[in-house]
C-alpha cells in the first residue's frame, strides 16, 4: 500500500554519553518528564502529524525498547496498513552487518521503505524533546521542491559552538553547514531531523554505501554529498521548545524544564504526548509532606519533602527524606532521612536512610567545574549513611 511519507526513527545509538543510565537500556527507552520515555516524543509527533508508518531502527540493548513499543497501540500506531515496525539489523543471504552508521541503518532497510513506495522519508532521532507538526514541515518541503529539508532553531552564539550550524540564503536555502564550529557563521542549529524526497535520498544512500571511506552518517556524509551534488536543501524554521538530551546534564535540565508548563505543555489535549503507562493507583501526599514546584504521578507515596523535582510512577519518599532538583525514576525508594539533591535516581534504586546523593552547585562556587549531577543507576542500593558526591555515578551497590 502506498504511503506519501514514511518515518524512520533512529533508535540504535548506544547513548554512551549517558553512561550508567544506558548501561542496560537503549537511550530512547530512558524515562523522561514523569510519565514518558524519550521515544514517546517522536512517536507521538508522528501520530499527531498523521504519519502512520514508522520504522524504528534498533540495535543496542533493544529488549526493553521493543517491549515498550509493542504493537504501537499507545501511540495509535497499531494499524492494519502501516503502523510501527521494529527494524533490527539482520542477515541477508550470506551477508549482514550491524548498522554501521545512521545512514547505513536506513540503507539496510530500503526494502522496508520501498514496500510503501513513499514520495518522502522523514528521518527522526530518538533523543529529542519537542512537539512538532511534521505535516507542516512536509508542506514546506513540497512547496520549495527541496531534496532535503532540515528543521532549525535559533540558538545563542555560545550554544552554536556545540551544535550543527546551518548557513542559509535569503530564501532559507542552506548554502553551508558546519559541525560544532569554533566561530559560527550563523545561529541556526540543526534539530537532527530530516525530510527527504525519497528518490534523492535513495540515490545518495546507495552512493554513500559504495564509498568505503564514508562513516555512513546522515549529518557528516549524506548532507555533505547532497550539498556538493547541488541538491536543493532548505531550512525549516521551528520556534517551539526543542532539546537534545544526549548527556546527563541536558537530560537533567530538560526534565527541570518540564516543571514550568510555559516551556512545553505536556498536558495540552491538542497535541498530547502518548506513553505506555503502568497500572498504578493515584498518588498519596501524606501528613508531613511538602511538595513544591514538582511533578508527581501515579503510584507515588510522598511523606517527605520534594522540591523542584520530577517523580516518576511508584516512587516512595519516606517521612523526613528530602529530595530537591532531582529526577527520581519509576519504583525508586528514598528512605527516611535520606537527602537527594541535584541527582538522577534511576529505576528501582533504593536510597537507604541517612544516605546522601548529590550536592547543590552553591557548594562548588570556588571550583564550579567539579560540580555535576549525581547519578545512581537502576536497581542500585545506596546503604544507610553512605554518600554519593556531586558528579559521581554509581552502577554498583554502595553498602
Amino acid at each position, binding site marked *: 500500500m502506498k504511503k506519501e511519507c514514511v518515518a524512520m526513527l533512529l533508535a540504535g545509538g548506544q547513548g554512551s554519553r549517558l553512561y550508567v543510565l544506558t548501561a542496560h537500556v537503549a537511550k530512547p527507552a530512558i524515562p523522561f518528564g514523569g510519565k514518558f520515555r524519550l521515544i514517546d516524543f517522536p512517536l507521538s509527533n508522528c501520530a499527531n502529524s498523521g504519519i502512520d508508518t514508522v520504522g524504528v531502527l534498533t540495535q543496542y540493548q533493544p529488549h526493553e525498547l521493543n517491549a515498550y513499543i509493542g504493537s504501537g497501540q499507545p501511540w495509535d500506531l497499531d494499524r492494519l496498513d502501516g503502523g510501527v515496525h521494529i527494524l533490527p539489523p539482520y542477515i541477508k543471504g550470506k551477508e549482514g552487518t550491524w548498522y554501521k552508521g545512521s545512514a547505513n541503518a536506513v540503507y539496510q532497510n530500503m526494502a522496508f521503505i520501498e514496500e510503501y513506495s513513499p514520495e518522502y522519508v522523514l528521518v527522526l532521532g530518538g533523543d529529542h524533546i519537542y512537539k512538532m507538526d511534521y505535516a507542516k514541515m512536509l508542506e514546506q518541503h513540497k512547496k520549495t521542491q527541496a531534496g532535503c529539508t532540515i528543521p532549525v532553531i535559533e540558538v545563542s552564539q555560545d550554544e552554536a559552538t556545540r551544535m550543527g550550524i546551518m548557513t542559509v540564503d535569503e530564501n532559507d536555502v542552506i548554502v553551508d553547514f558546519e559541525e560544532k564550529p569554533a566561530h559560527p557563521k550563523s545561529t541556526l542549529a540543526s534539530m537532527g531531523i530530516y525530510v527527504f524526497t525519497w528518490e534523492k535520498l535513495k540515490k545518495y544512500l546507495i552512493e554513500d554505501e559504495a564509498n568505503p571511506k564514508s562513516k555512513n552518517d546522515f549529518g557528516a556524509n549524506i548532507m555533505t554529498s547532497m550539498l556538493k551534488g547541488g541538491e536543493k536543501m532548505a531550512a525549516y524554521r521551528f520556534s517551539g521548545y526543542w532539546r537534545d538530551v544526549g548527556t546527563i546534564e541536558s537530560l537533567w535540565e530538560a526534565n527541570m524544564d518540564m516543571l514550568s508548563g510555559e516551556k512545553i505543555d505536556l498536558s495540552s489535549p491538542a497535541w498530547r504526548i502518548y506513553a505506555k503507562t503502568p497500572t498504578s493507583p493515584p498518588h498519596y*501526599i501524606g501528613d508531613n509532606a511538602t511538595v513544591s514546584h514538582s511533578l*508527581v504521578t501515579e503510584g507515588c507515596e510522598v511523606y517527605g519533602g520534594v522540591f523542584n523535582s520530577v517523580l516518576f510512577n511508584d516512587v516512595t519518599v519516606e517521612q523526613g527524606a528530602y529530595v530537591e532538583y532531582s529526577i527520581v525514576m519509576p519504583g525508586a525508594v528514598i528512605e527516611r532521612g535520606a537527602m537527594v539533591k541535584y541527582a538522577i535516581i534511576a529505576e528501582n534504586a533504593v536510597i537507604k536512610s541517612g544516605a546522601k546523593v548529590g550536592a547543590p552547585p552553591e557548594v562548588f562556587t570556588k571550583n564550579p567545574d567539579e560540580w555535576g549531577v549525581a547519578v545512581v543507576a537502576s536497581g542500585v542500593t545506596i546503604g544507610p549513611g553512605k554518600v554519593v558526591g556531586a558528579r559521581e555515578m554509581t552502577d554498583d551497590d554502595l553498602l
Partner: protein
Amino acid sequence: MKNMHGILFAYSSNVRLKELTEHRTASSMPFGSRYRVIDFMLSNMVNAGITDIGVIMRENYQSLLDHLGSGKDWDLARKRGGLRLLPPFAYAGTRRELSTYRGNLEALYAITSYMEHIRQEYIVLADGDLIVNLPLEEIFESHIESGADITCVCLGHESGVEGGTYLRLGLQNRVREVLLSGLDEKAYPCIGVYILSKKLLEKLLADSAKHNGVIFTRDVLQRMQGQLNMTAYIHKGFSTRPQSVADYFKQTMALLKPDVRKDLFNRKRPIKTKLRDEASTYYAPESHVKRSVVADGCIIKGELEDCIVFRGVTVEKGAKLSNCILMQDTVIREDVDLSFAITDKEVEVTKGRILKGHESYPIAISKGSVV
C-alpha cells in the same frame, strides 16, 4: 483459570445517590481519584484470569458504554471471548415498559441467548457497583475444593455493613440461613458475588421462572436453602456499595486510611481503568497539600487537606479545600473556600465562592455546573 465466565449486573441505580447518578448508573460513578466503580469488579475478574465477561445494562448506560469501549483497557478486546456489552435490545421479555430490571434474575432471563453461548463451566455473578478488591482466583479454588453448589462471598460479621442480605453460617462456612434484611450480629453480610456452575444456573433460572422469581437472593438462595449445598467465602478486606451521597462521601474518604488503600489498590491485583494519557500532576510552590489522594494531570496551586482529586483538576492559588472530592476536570478558581463538597465532572467553582457542607450532608454539585 480459564473455566470461569463473568457476568456483571451494571443496570442498577439508587435514588439516594441523587446528583451522582443523574447522568449514569451506580456502576459508572467515578470513584477513588481515577476509577469508575465498575473497574473494581471488572479488574477482579481479569486478575483472576477470566477472559469472557458480559455486562448487563438497562438504562442510562451512555456513560458506561463510553467508559468500557471495546474493553481494551482491561485487555478484554479479544477475538475469542472478551468483553460483551448487553444492553436491553437483547431483552425478549414481556416487561419492556419498565425502565429497569426488578432484580438480577430478571436481568439474567433477558440474556438467555447470550448464556447459551458461554463456553466456560463456571459463572461468577457480581454487581457492577461493588467496590472491592477480591482474590477471585482463590475464591474459585475454594469453591471447587468445597464441592459446594454455590459459593457466596461475604464480609466478616464485624464489618457492620447495613442493608442487604445476611447469611448465618454453620460448620465450614456452610450457609444455614439466608436473611434478607435486618442487621444481625451473628450473620455475615453477603456482598453479592456468587460462583456456581453454568449448568446449575440454567436449571435455577428455569425453575425460578416458573415461580416468577425476580431476585437471586430471595428467589434462589432463600427458597433453595436446605436443598442446595451453599458455602460462604469470607473476605476480610474493604468492601462497599455506596447507598447515598453521604455514604459515597464516607466510603471515598476511607481511602485516606493507608490500610484501605493498601487493600483496595493491592499491587498484586491492580485495578485497571480507562486510560487518559495525562501528564503528571504539578504542585506549585504556593501549594499546600496534606493527606490527599491525587490522580494525574492536575495543576495544584491552592491548599488541599483530606481531599480526593480526580484526573485533570485545577486548583488555583489561594483556594482552600478540605474534605472534598473533586471529580475529573473540576476547576476551582482563586480564593474559593470549600469543605465537605463533591464536585462532579467539569464543575467550575468561580473566584471567592464559599461552600461548606457537613459529613452528614456533603454538598454534591452536578456535572458541568458553574457555581
